[in-house]
């Protein structure tokens, strides 16, 4: 039987009423992070655990709470960050074995998290340079799915999703060039939010694809993800794509309860191209949204067939270009799977890339048309549940085109359009593991998207915590 999720909002409520303090919770988080790798099959969520940094920050946060001067909804909350963004004094490995020089200063998102009082307890594992949706990283660390350690977490933000699903932290930073926040969130039964392209600056973070990269949270609830997202969003001069964004809107008023008045679109030609269990979960979710008062209607969208190939042409070409300087000196340090994908990405010609970007414009227009008539567009997050990891792939990596297509089938459109999308836990596929429900909204509509996702999450069955889940509140109280 599952327990209750330990969210950031529950933690800060306890800090405010004085029943818990950030020092005890941070200590519990650090201990849980260490313990997660001590078993026969290590969870593999963390690349490094930042004990000293976290303990010092927790002491300061505790003093603020005692003085009634908290910095807000993240103050004293243990968080983890994907090891593709700079944390001063620690290497940003980006999932490689060779990037080992410590960063001189924090990335912008890390600066913002620390300014909001978040306690960084460690950096999380990822698919090598973020180039893959499985999380399998034989040369570095492969995170395991907390619901079943034989299975993949999905990637590339594999460690972040594993850390949240296991209860080691309530929220973690992820990044997403083709679904890398939403895919592992979906497969690990937690929530993942990718905002509008440019909303969160990527300054001083590792680049995979200039026109596809997003950063955002994976968390135990929609509220936690939104609080984290608000803390890291906003313009920064180091990232031109972030400069022209409108301010975050305040949350729109929905009806008093349920999803009354909310218009949801879905596309049978797409939503039904998934494994039977995922399809069932998706249709159960649509039924629940209908019962909750939403208007759920079928739509057709042109150019859906092109989403996957345009996505891979864009990702392949941009990844080959972004990794080219590293490949010169470190080709043999990359895994065979990454090298193969980068070699193939490098064969996309300029004419092909530009044609793909023109088709991308048509895709963007098609989604904008749908989202001018509907509040959200719903799909499953992935077309499959988390597969079992094969030993051969774990040792030497893999390129599995069918699996990659199934994992990124529904997420790539969010990167190609740049529109915000969130994955929330959908009805469970019995015996198979978590399934995500993805909702996409129009550009800059993150607040409305989250308001709808929160209501949807209230309507859908509460996701189960995995066996061995650590409730940080209980763990902290047990220490006292």
């Amino acid at each position, binding site marked *: 039987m599952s327990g209750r999720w330990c969210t950031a909002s529950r933690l800060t409520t306890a800090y405010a009423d004085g029943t818990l303090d950030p020092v005890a919770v941070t200590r519990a988080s650090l201990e849980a992070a260490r313990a997660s790798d001590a078993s026969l099959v290590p969870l593999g969520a963390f690349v490094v655990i930042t004990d000293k940094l976290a303990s010092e920050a927790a002491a300061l946060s505790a003093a603020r709470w005692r003085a009634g001067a908290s910095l807000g909804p993240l103050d004293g909350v243990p968080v983890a960050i994907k090891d593709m963004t700079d944390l001063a004094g620690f290497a940003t490995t980006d999932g490689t074995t060779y990037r080992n020089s410590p960063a001189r200063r924090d990335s912008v998102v890390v600066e913002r998290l620390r300014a909001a009082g978040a306690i960084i307890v460690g950096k999380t594992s990822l698919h090598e340079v973020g180039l893959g949706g499985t999380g399998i990283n034989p040369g570095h660390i492969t995170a395991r799915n907390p619901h079943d350690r034989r299975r993949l977490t999905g990637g590339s933000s594999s460690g972040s999703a594993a850390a949240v699903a296991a209860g080691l932290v309530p929220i973690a930073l992820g990044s997403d060039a083709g679904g890398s926040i939403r895919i592992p969130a979906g497969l690990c039964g937690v929530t993942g939010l990718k905002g509008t392209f440019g909303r969160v600056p990527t300054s001083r973070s590792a680049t995979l694809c200039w026109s596809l990269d997003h950063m955002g949270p994976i968390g135990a609830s929609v509220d936690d993800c939104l609080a984290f997202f608000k803390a890291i969003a906003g313009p920064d001069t180091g990232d*031109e794509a972030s400069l022209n964004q409108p301010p975050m809107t305040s949350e729109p008023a929905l009806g008093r309860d349920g999803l009354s008045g909310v218009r949801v679109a879905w596309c049978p030609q797409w939503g039904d191209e998934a494994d039977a269990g*995922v399809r069932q979960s998706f249709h159960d979710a649509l039924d629940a949204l209908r019962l909750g008062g939403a208007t759920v209607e079928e739509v057709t969208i042109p150019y859906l067939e092109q989403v996957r190939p345009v996505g891979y*042409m864009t990702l392949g070409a941009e990844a080959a270009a972004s990794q080219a300087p590293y490949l010169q000196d470190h080709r043999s340090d990359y895994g065979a799977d990454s*090298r*193969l994908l980068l070699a193939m990405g490098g064969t996309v010609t300029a004419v092909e890339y530009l044609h793909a970007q*023109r088709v991308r414009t048509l895709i963007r227009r098609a989604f904008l048309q749908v989202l001018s008539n509907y509040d959200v567009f719903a799909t499953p997050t992935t077309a499959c549940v988390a597969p079992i990891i094969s030993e051969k792939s774990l040792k030497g990596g893999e*390129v599995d085109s069918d699996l990659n297509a199934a994992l990124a089938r529904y997420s790539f459109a969010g990167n190609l359009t740049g529109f915000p999308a969130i994955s929330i836990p959908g009805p469970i596929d019995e015996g198979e593991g978590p399934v995500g429900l993805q909702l996409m909204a129009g550009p800059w509509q993150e607040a409305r998207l989250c308001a709808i996702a929160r209501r949807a999450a209230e309507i859908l069955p509460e996701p189960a915590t995995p066996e061995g889940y650590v409730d940080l509140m209980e763990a902290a109280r047990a220490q006292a």
Partner: protein
Amino acid sequence: MSKKNGVASQGLLLNGGALKAALLVAENPLLRGMMRARFFEQLQIDKVMEVEMKGDDAGVRPALLPWLPAGPAQGGGR
């Protein structure tokens, strides 16, 4: 054509020795084209290249990043 993970499978599963062999081909400039053909077929890149940009779509621009900052609000027309 089989069906796996909800996707029409055209089969490209490379791990172990097969992955190493594929890498040797992909990183050899003389052989790379063979691997590209296999990859592009599997990714159905032809579906992208077949989209014709004619008529109303002749002026469709590539979805590239904005290269200029937004200008200040201006009054009046041209």
